[in-house]
């Protein structure tokens, strides 16, 4: 009996120490999500994070539930506010905020325009155009941005959210409506029960992540290392090998119409042919033409993926240049020819 009690006590004492250690040293990922009935899955306010996926990012989900530098909901006078929207490329957990393309753009624009410019990071991993539309209307709109910059990849022109806790778009005739099928769903009630544990224990969150990885494709190579032979032929990466051609469905067309009306400016981050000349898409890939580095190369992690620090810098410069022209035109500001950042 003494030993059983000791065993339980040993587990509790050690768990408390290890939990304090892993959560303060950030050696395991923290749960950075929250649930909001209106917005669905939202980033958890006031949560610090450290990420090692590909690069190295340290930052904070601010009090208003978006990433890093915080600006109040109410915009001050004489301030130009730019919202950045898109997927993980925009969210950019891989870099420090000071090296983030949005922050670089903000610094350059503030200096060049001699005006307060606020750039807000509303990027969310996995978001497609439909998610962006919903997120804009349910969350971003209240910040009253002067410009909303959308950055899309080739796969983002769809409206089928893979996240069960996000509102979805319903397209009826010429109307777009936002629906929330997850409310009262079993998934939500299950999440509500487990969320407190996930929120307050890094170890529980890590166990949850581990549970999701319990798949044959992951377990066997992890256990047997090079003794495990993977016979699967890797799927061809169309984004690299073939330049995809994209035609917009009426639904996407309508979304783009409405986003453009709400001060939307569109960028694409991969080489795609868009068979539609109704909208202007600024192609970010041109930034890397004639550059001697791979913008997706992460040398330390020995992998490829999202934009690296060098790419962020160049994209920041490119977007600042683009936005300077647009802002000067729309705000009627005088042109300043100094280009010291170039």
């Amino acid at each position: 009996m003494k030993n059983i009690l000791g065993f339980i006590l040993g587990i509790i004492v050690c768990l408390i120490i290890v939990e304090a250690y892993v959560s303060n040293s950030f050696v395991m990922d923290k749960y950075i999500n929250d649930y909001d009935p209106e917005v669905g899955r939202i980033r958890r306010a006031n949560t610090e994070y450290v990420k090692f996926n590909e690069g190295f990012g340290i930052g904070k989900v601010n009090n208003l539930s978006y990433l890093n530098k915080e600006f109040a909901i109410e915009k001050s006078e004489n301030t130009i506010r730019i919202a950045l929207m898109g997927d993980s490329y925009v969210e950019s957990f891989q870099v420090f905020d000071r090296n983030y393309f949005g922050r670089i753009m903000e610094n350059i624009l503030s200096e060049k325009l001699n005006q307060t410019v606020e750039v807000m990071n509303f990027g969310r991993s996995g978001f497609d155009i439909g998610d962006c539309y919903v997120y804009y209307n349910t969350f971003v709109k209240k910040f009253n941005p002067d410009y909303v910059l959308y950055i899309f990849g080739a796969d983002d022109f769809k409206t089928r959210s893979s996240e069960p806790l996000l509102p979805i778009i319903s397209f009826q005739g010429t109307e777009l409506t936002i629906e929330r099928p997850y409310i009262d769903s079993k998934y939500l009630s299950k999440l509500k029960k487990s969320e407190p544990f996930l929120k307050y224990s890094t170890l529980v969150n890590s166990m949850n992540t581990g549970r999701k990885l319990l798949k044959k494709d992951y377990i066997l190579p992890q256990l047997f290392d090079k003794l495990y032979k993977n016979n699967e032929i890797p799927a061809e990466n169309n984004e690299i090998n073939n330049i995809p051609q994209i035609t917009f469905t009426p639904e996407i067309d309508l979304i783009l119409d409405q986003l453009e009306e709400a001060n939307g400016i569109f960028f694409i981050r991969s080489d795609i042919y868009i068979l539609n000349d109704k909208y202007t898409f600024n192609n970010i890939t041109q930034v890397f033409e004639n550059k001697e580095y791979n913008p997706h190369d992460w040398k330390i992690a020995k992998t490829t993926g999202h934009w690296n620090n060098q790419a962020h810098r160049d994209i920041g410069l490119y977007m600042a240049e683009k936005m300077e022209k647009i802002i000067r035109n729309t705000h009627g500001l005088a042109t300043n020819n100094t280009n010291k950042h170039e």
Partner: protein
Amino acid sequence: MLFNSFIFLIFLGVVLPIFYLLPNKKSKNLFLLFSSYFFYGYWDWKFCSLLAISTIVDYYLGKKLFNEQREKQRKIYLAMSMIVNLGLLGVFKYFNFFVDSFSNLTSNFGYDLDFLHLNIILPVGISFYTFQTMSYTIDIYKKQLEPTNSFIDFALFVSFFPQLVAGPIERASNLLPQLHHKLAPNKEQIQKGIVLIITGLFKKVMVGDTTGRYVDQLFGNPELYKSPELLAGLVLFSIQIYADFSGYSNIARGTAKLLGVELMKNFEQPYLSTNITEFWRRWHISLSSWLKDYLYISLGGNRKGKVRTYINLFTTMLLGGLWHGAAWTFVIWGGLHGIYLAIHKAILGNRKINISYRYTGIISLLNFSVKCIFTNILVLFTWLFFRVKSLSEAKYFLSKMIYWESSELTGIFIRITLAFVLVNFLIDFFEYKTNKHTPVLLIPNFGFQYGILLVLLGTTLLYMFQSTPLPFVYFQF
């Protein structure tokens, strides 16, 4: 094969039951020899031949040395052993370093020697096993050891997998006699072995590998980071290298215990040292004692006057630095430690140092703490040269420390660094206080012991499952 990988745990799960079932000494040693070559060959089977060359040469030269009475001939045999072992090291580890350094020099005069640069990779653990086999022939030459008559035992001594790739660098006088008997672990060895493996894995994976992720990023792109962040990176590296190496040594010792073999301790809480001499008695003990016995003493030790003592200390540490890696940064690292040791020796005179602290009051604790912190600052400075890839990187890093720039992330970096420092200190504190690497076994309640070990193992496996194992820092040496 990495200790911090699932494949090693599977390997151990296969080797141990077969080993226990084998009936006699010969079959057990033969099986361990085969397992050790498999362990080494798993990385690259081609380099098993180097291991075999070193084994065959030293086995036969050891016998020849022992049977030979003529001093001149004995010296020739010893020289042959040195030439083969140091030759392997020279070709695989130092050739390119000297060629590149020489080429840099000659390029100033218009001669390009880059064509001499060889495209070879450094075989894992070569510095460890060559030093181990060299100690065998040197000991026989010094008539301190008799050669073994069993080739299998000797081959196992050289390739014994728990300590093959990263030590502890064992002496033949300790390991060979154990291999001459039938290996059968007792209950205490099994108990301690399991605890050492679990705590070693926790240290290596949960402290060493995790700090390593920060360190790799901060040192990999220093131009992206500000002064407090880089300083945190340096502190984290000092924790990484200790947790990584001492954790690995614990796993090695634990694994050996499960096979009935006792290996020497390699670390004794070095960051609780009150001076640099004590630090070197607690840090990488198997290497520092090797350097002392075979290099420092051979150079004359402290027998030839004060000045020679200081020079000998400096030279030993300089070469010790070069042992770690073929780069000028390692030479500086070793040189700095040589200077520290020589200065401390000069201050110390003939006094002996006391290497165990006992609490006698708050003043003594304060005195101990201040000395520890001062020693750690000295050591921390040298780690910079150990970690950077080039002298220009070290210069950049130092300039960031001098021209200090604040960071908006100072708070979080302090928090992260403190978490690692405290967990490291907690482990060291219990080991220091109990003078054992298995303090958990001193808890009287078995249930409590198992509870702690279960959480440590569970957390480590959980992390290992979700991450790619980081290679052991000392593999590169």
